[in-house]
């Protein structure tokens, strides 16, 4: 067999094979080390830059084709709904980008979608499919509403506390599915969606006439105090500070996922839970952490809506943001930048849907249809990429 000591390394000479502390490749001299590192470094930097450019280009291309495919697939339905695609899409454009108010409305709708998309994406990174954002946003909305109405304190503190209460409520709402998944292995899709229906019931119970949070309007609470409102930032439109908070949170999510050991653990458990276990990472713990973080983001989704857009808690204030969030996260390829772009696209759809209803007679439900088509396109892409790989001559 081998004489272990004299055998050369497989590639190039190796004079010493002593192990070394992490991060310091060992070479004969410092100069050699530096040369190697520099040449390797610059080559890697170049390759990385090219990769990044290609990666961004590819991601943008996939994003655009997915959106285009979904819109084309939805076109026949506009005809079925008694309109025609041209009228429909023109109305959509005018309602979402054709002026100050439409643009502001797009951003208003984008805000909860960005939070919700991040919620789904963060869980997905850890291999969890949270389709319970719709329930978590109700829980978050209620908590934010209660703090906004009942507490009295200074303006910035009040808003922050109300937002945090929303996040905490969402996280707690997600704790039930997280615990069932981590300890009993019950699939989170079933439990998160069932928690949605429980949340809807609780919401109805609280704001009904005679309910604990009954307000002067039929299915809503009284308004939150002025100190708890997210200030408007583009008078005279409804656009509020929530969009800024959402973008900051998106940045924080990016940082957490890609630039902290905690985010690395999430991604590792999502990619290979067994390897995680062999390297000392408990997947049960990551499941609970990821689900609660996701729930917190879901709770914020509701909290910003309550504190910024409606300024009170309303029963069924969400037109399905939680479900659109699934499409937002998948369209955004689970990356916060992609999710932001996708939430803008769905914001356009939501904002334009009023005009769509008025001019083309198509209901808001068309947005859910497009969500479904987007998710279907994401799911079907696998076949296309496999076909492409095969036609390039590679084995499957």
């Amino acid at each position, binding site marked *: 067999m081998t004489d272990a000591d004299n055998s050369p390394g497989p590639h190039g000479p190796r004079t010493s094979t002593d192990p070394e502390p992490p991060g310091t490749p060992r070479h004969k001299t410092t100069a050699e080390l530096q040369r190697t590192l520099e040449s390797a470094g610059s080559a890697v930097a170049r390759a990385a830059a090219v990769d990044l450019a290609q990666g961004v280009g590819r991601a943008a291309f996939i994003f655009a084709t997915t959106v285009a495919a979904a819109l084309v697939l939805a076109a026949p339905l506009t005809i079925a709904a008694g309109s025609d695609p041209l009228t429909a899409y023109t109305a959509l454009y005018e309602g979402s980008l054709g002026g100050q108010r439409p643009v502001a409305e797009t951003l208003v709708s984008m805000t909860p979608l960005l939070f919700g998309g991040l919620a789904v994406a963060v869980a997905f990174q850890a291999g969890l499919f949270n389709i319970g954002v719709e329930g978590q946003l109700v829980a978050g909305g209620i908590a934010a509403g209660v703090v906004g109405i009942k507490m009295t304190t200074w303006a910035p503190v009040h808003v922050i506390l109300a937002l945090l209460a929303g996040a905490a409520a969402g996280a707690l709402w997600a704790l039930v599915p997280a615990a069932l998944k981590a300890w009993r292995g019950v699939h989170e899709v079933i439990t998160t969606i069932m928690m949605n229906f*429980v949340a809807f019931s609780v919401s109805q*119970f609280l704001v009904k006439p005679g309910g604990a949070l009954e307000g002067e309007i039929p299915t809503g609470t009284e308004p939150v105090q002025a100190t708890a409102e997210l200030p408007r930032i583009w008078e005279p439109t409804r656009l509020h500070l929530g969009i800024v908070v959402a973008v900051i949170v998106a940045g924080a999510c990016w940082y957490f996922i890609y630039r902290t050991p905690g985010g690395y653990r999430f991604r590792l458990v999502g990619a290979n839970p067994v390897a995680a276990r062999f390297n000392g990472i408990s997947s049960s713990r990551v499941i609970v952490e990821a689900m609660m973080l996701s729930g917190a983001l879901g709770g914020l989704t509701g909290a910003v809506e309550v504190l910024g857009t409606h300024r009170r808690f309303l029963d069924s204030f969400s037109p399905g943001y939680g479900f659109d969030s699934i499409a937002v996260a998948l369209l955004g390829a689970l990356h916060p930048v992609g999710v932001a772009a996708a939430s803008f696209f769905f914001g356009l759809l939501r904002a334009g849907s009023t005009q769509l209803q008025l001019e083309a007679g198509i209901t808001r439900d068309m947005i859910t249809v497009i969500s479904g088509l987007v998710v279907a396109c994401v799911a079907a892409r696998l076949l296309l990429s496999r076909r492409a790989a095969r036609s390039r001559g590679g084995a499957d």
Partner: protein
Amino acid sequence: MPEMLDIIDMNWVAQGIRLSVPLIFAALGGLLSERAGVINIALEGKMLFGAFAGVAVTWWTGTNVVGLIAALAVGAGIGWVHAWFSITVRSDQIVSATAINLFALGVTAALIPAIWEGGRANTPTVERFRRFEVPLLSDLPQIGTVFSRLSWFDYTALVLAPLVWLVLWRSPFGLRLRACGESPEAAASVGVNVIRTRYTAVMLAGVFAAMGGVYLSLVQNGLFQRGITNGRGFLALAAMIFGKWRPIPVLGACLLFGMADAYQLRAQSKSDLPVELFQALPYVVGLITLVFVGRAVAPAAIGRAYVKD
């Protein structure tokens, strides 16, 4: 609390059975699909399609039997799409099923105003399926109340569970189907056509779920309204898991959820307990039952795409 016990009578039993019927159909469909190795989160969407198609075709033709047949055909069609995604494309089975659910929720709602001008969230009412009184049984004291309130759909659902058991555990097709869900490679090694078997199972699941949807629209309500299923597809999945993927226990789980639902409905009318909270009862019961399900009872190859060598 006497009023809470007043609810428990034969009318409650009959109503409980009726409310569990859509769950039974959907859960048994899910069982077929998952026993063959394909996760079926898409039951909700398939039920919606079935419920909608049943009403729409009944409205056009004026005959509810034609509506029923059309709904089952639509169920098979959606089942085929689902099968294509999860078996041929081999995409993530949860993601593709979610696409179907979202699409179904949107399309069925968007088509209501498109077909029936003016209608917003509801379709107009159409001819329902009538109750079906079994002559002798309905005359029995006490229990007769139950039988006099059931339609032939209800009897079909109750008979379907043992029938599914018979097919899965006592027929060659069932044996092969379960083999595909446990170890597709082992099944293929003895000449079982895994792809075709799985397609059949998922399409059958579509038909069953559509039947559950039709029950909601053509038997219970006589119309279709936006999101009529209201999570029953997922409740059916919970029942399927609670019943450990076995037809008779699954039937029992569905009846449990249905009874809980009937209880909350009757509690609403008989007492001034918080109605809204009681509406969540079936879901809370569902969540609690899931706590008691151990790991590793699901078919071994569930969710795993089969790649032919």
